């Protein structure tokens, strides 16, 4: 790790000020909460802040469920949320996405806010031995496009970056129309999670719409019948403790044998959690007939662009969508 000063501010307002003064790019000040991703980035010299500002003890960690839905304090850990009976019962896709993430130890440490803001697992981003990475060093190029790109995105890419988004949780939350509450030195705002993430375009190093000094303080998820019947399917190289190659978050509302307007997101395939509106539309009013499901899922491939090693994802994600819906259909 490069040397840094550790700031332990007395309250959130003080923490926001430290970061707000630091500016946006290659920030000389960074936040640390659970630390499970930040420590890796510091150890690998991917991030070299002059100042590390801890949010430990400054953020809400409550998990609340009411008639309107779910509210997760940003400091709630992955393990706490995954084990919460109300989450398991009314928002199973969230619990499943969390239990399929990381390891039991990391789930005890990592927080909701940090999970949403974790950096990509693109090996060229994580290894400073590679000179070219626009996300790490703007303007240096992208080593992944012509390199080993088995893990990379097939949607939302640009000629500057094809790194896949790493959070399983974010995919589940986008499928449920979640939003994040954001606090800034000058106030607060609410951002739909789907709008939090930016596409890489020409500035892959700027990953979210958060301004310097803004912090996610909570996640809100509206209650819905579909949320109760939701599922996260993760396809990966080993059965546990592995990032996704492809995953599907599906929330299904059934009226008799027919699917009501439904929601799906896919992961491992996009530079941000990737909604599939064409598939959602095609499924509305359909039955769980396998051939119909396959036809609808095929629409997910529209606009997908493989880079060689990751071409298989375009087929695999269609099968993941079908499997996830069939699993839910069988879950009466």
């Amino acid at each position: 790790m490069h040397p840094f000063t550790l700031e332990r501010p007395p309250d959130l307002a003080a923490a926001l000020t430290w970061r707000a003064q630091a500016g946006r790019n290659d920030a000389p000040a960074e936040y640390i909460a659970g630390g499970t991703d930040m420590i890796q980035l510091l150890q690998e010299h991917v991030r070299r802040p002059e100042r590390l500002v801890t949010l430990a003890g400054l953020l809400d960690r409550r998990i609340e469920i009411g008639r309107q839905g779910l509210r997760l304090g940003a400091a709630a850990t992955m393990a706490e949320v995954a084990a919460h009976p109300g989450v398991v019962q009314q928002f199973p896709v969230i619990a499943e996405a969390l239990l399929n993430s990381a390891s039991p130890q990391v789930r005890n440490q990592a927080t909701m806010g940090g999970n949403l803001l974790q950096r990509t697992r693109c090996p060229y981003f994580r290894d400073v031995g590679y000179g070219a990475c626009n996300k790490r060093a703007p303007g240096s190029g992208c080593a992944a496009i012509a390199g080993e790109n088995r893990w990379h995105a097939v949607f939302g890419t640009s000629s500057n970056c094809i790194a896949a988004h790493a959070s399983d949780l974010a995919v589940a939350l986008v499928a449920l129309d979640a939003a994040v509450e954001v606090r800034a030195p000058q106030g607060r705002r609410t951002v739909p999670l789907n709008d939090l993430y930016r596409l890489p375009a020409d500035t892959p190093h700027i990953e979210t719409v958060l301004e310097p000094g803004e912090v996610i303080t909570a996640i809100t998820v509206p209650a819905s019948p579909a949320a109760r019947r939701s599922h996260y399917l993760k396809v990966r190289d080993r059965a546990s403790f592995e990032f996704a190659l492809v995953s599907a978050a599906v929330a299904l509302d059934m009226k008799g044998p027919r699917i009501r307007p439904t929601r799906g997101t896919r992961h491992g395939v996009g530079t941000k959690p990737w909604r599939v509106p064409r598939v959602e539309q095609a499924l509305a009013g359909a039955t769980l007939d396998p051939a119909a499901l396959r036809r609808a899922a095929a629409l997910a491939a529209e606009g997908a662009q493989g880079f060689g090693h990751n071409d298989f994802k375009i087929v695999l994600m269609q099968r993941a969508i079908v499997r996830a819906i069939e699993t839910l259909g069988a879950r009466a």
Partner: protein
Amino acid sequence: MTRFAPTRRELLKLGAVTGSALVMGDAWPAPADAPQAATAAASQSAEPASAPINVLLRVNGREHRLALDPRTTLLDALREHLHLTGSKKGCGLGQCGACTVLMDGKRVKSCLSLAALVEGREITTIEGLARGDELHPLQKAFIERDGFQCGYCTPGQIMSGVACISEGHAGSALQIRDWMSGNICRCGAYDNIVAAIQDAARATRSTRKG
């Protein structure tokens, strides 16, 4: 607490002593430990130091006041400053689990926490598991089931296994494998590790009933 600067030989001796409490005699891989410690020390000294900060750590029921470089991870504080070398440094990136300790009763990877940010938390390391000479049931089970070869991952496996049992995630071999996936064993002693955890889980359940 007074700081002392142990020589390499003293460090190895310490490792062997703490090790013997756990796995008996010369099975402890002191040589495997040495290059790791040397590498960690070298990588630290290659960079300029940050100004030290005061940190109060609670480990195995005792309080320790330390002046630490803010970059010091909990793992490095345990090993290099408190000389509790039972917790092992494998990857330093949260991938191998050799550094697993309990924090307020929950298992965590000590390489992914900064020591200064876990003030006031109750840390339990492998050295704090036995009660005097009486080994923890899972320590005994690892010996009986031969749950290791080189032994380097063993302290992390045992700390993680203790939590796996107390969480109620040791119901079947399959469940244990899933909930122990944060601990890698390069010798491939997994079958015996799972058997040891099953034994200890059964012993814990029967003790609770009794």
